[in-house]
């Protein structure tokens, strides 16, 4: 099977650009796996773990929402943040989660932003806890 070229871009820089055998991405409602010759697709990403497999080695990142575009064996991951799993610090995330929980939620908009912060922090914790 041909390799897929994985390109991860964030607003600040191109975080990663490398060929790989397989990658798994968190879509908004579940995980998707992409190997070579995948059909063209545009998907909405959720918060969670991105795994990239290359020659038996695995790279793990936390991705913070965004989009994925697959075409011609090129996977473009467009996300706000892509943090290598090793760089996630459980303590900081715990405090972020606590902070998110204490946010006010007395209007639909505030509720939504509170839920989002909590989901982000929880997803980061999951990624950090898996090593």
């Amino acid at each position: 099977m041909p390799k897929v070229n994985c390109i991860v871009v964030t607003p600040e820089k191109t975080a990663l650009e490398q060929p790989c055998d397989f990658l798994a991405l968190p879509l908004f409602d579940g995980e998707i796996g992409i190997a070579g010759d995948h059909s063209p697709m545009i998907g909405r990403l959720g918060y969670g773990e991105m795994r990239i497999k290359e020659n038996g080695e695995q790279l793990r990142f936390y991705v913070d929402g965004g989009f994925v575009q697959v075409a011609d064996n090129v996977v473009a991951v467009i996300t706000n943040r892509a943090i290598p799993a090793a760089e996630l610090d459980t303590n900081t995330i715990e405090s972020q989660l606590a902070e998110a929980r204490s946010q006010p939620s007395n209007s639909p908009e505030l509720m939504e932003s509170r839920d989002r912060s909590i989901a982000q922090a929880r997803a980061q914790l999951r990624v950090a806890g898996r090593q």
Partner: protein
Amino acid sequence: MAKARALDKRRKSIRNIKKITRTMELIATARFKKAMDRATAATAYTARITQLVKDLAQSGLEVSHPLLENRDKQERGLLLVLTANRGLCGGYNGGVVRAALAQQKELQGNYEDLRLEVSGKRGISAMKFRGIDVDQSYLQFEDQPKFDEVDAIASRYLEAYATGEIDRLDVVYTRFVTSARQVVTTETLLPLGSLTGTDEDADGAGTDSMYEFLPSAASILEEVVPTSFKVKLFKCFLDAAVSEQIARMVAMKSATENAQEIIKHLSMTYNRARQSQITGEIMEIIGGVEALKG
């Protein structure tokens, strides 16, 4: 000898100033390169988003979103002004502040309630000097603005726009065109107007897109629009940072050149003064000798 000595002293102090401006020029050059690299790195993201929007438009999807449409209600406006934290960069801050004041005047005619937000110490003090109240100020943006910081501000604007706290957002900043040209620009970011990429393929749009959309094209569009707003705002900050460094580089270069010229001029005057002093002394001696002879 008094006059010659004073001239020499002045020349020395100008030499010191020249050293400082020269150093500042070099620092600005290094910072400009860094800021420029960041701005170039950011274009990859913008290009991808544009491509995504294009593909979305080709799927025959009607591109409509509350952020894209003009509102009938025009009551509350918001003006964001991006200036620098530091001075000594020529007309950079002055230009932005002037444009901001003009825009403020214009908006005040249409909007009853106009909020003003300023980033950068220079802009804040300029507004204070003119007696204009600033609703919110930011000092954290230096030569390398972080996306997370801009993201926080952008999210706040989006929320305010959604809840009707603001009906329009204008940004005044210095746009980077080329390294030899930067223009002060006023841009309306909310409502967004149109997405880049949608207008180009308007007639070629059909339903023959090769992409599969997960969950649906409409849901992706819903997410793309706020993202492209955030990216646009981030680009404003990046452009402002790059332009600031260029402005400082140019200002310090001309200051150094000017100091060089003054030194040259002073040296000439100093040499002349010294020469005339020597001549005067010789005349006195010769005069004395002549008098003794007689």
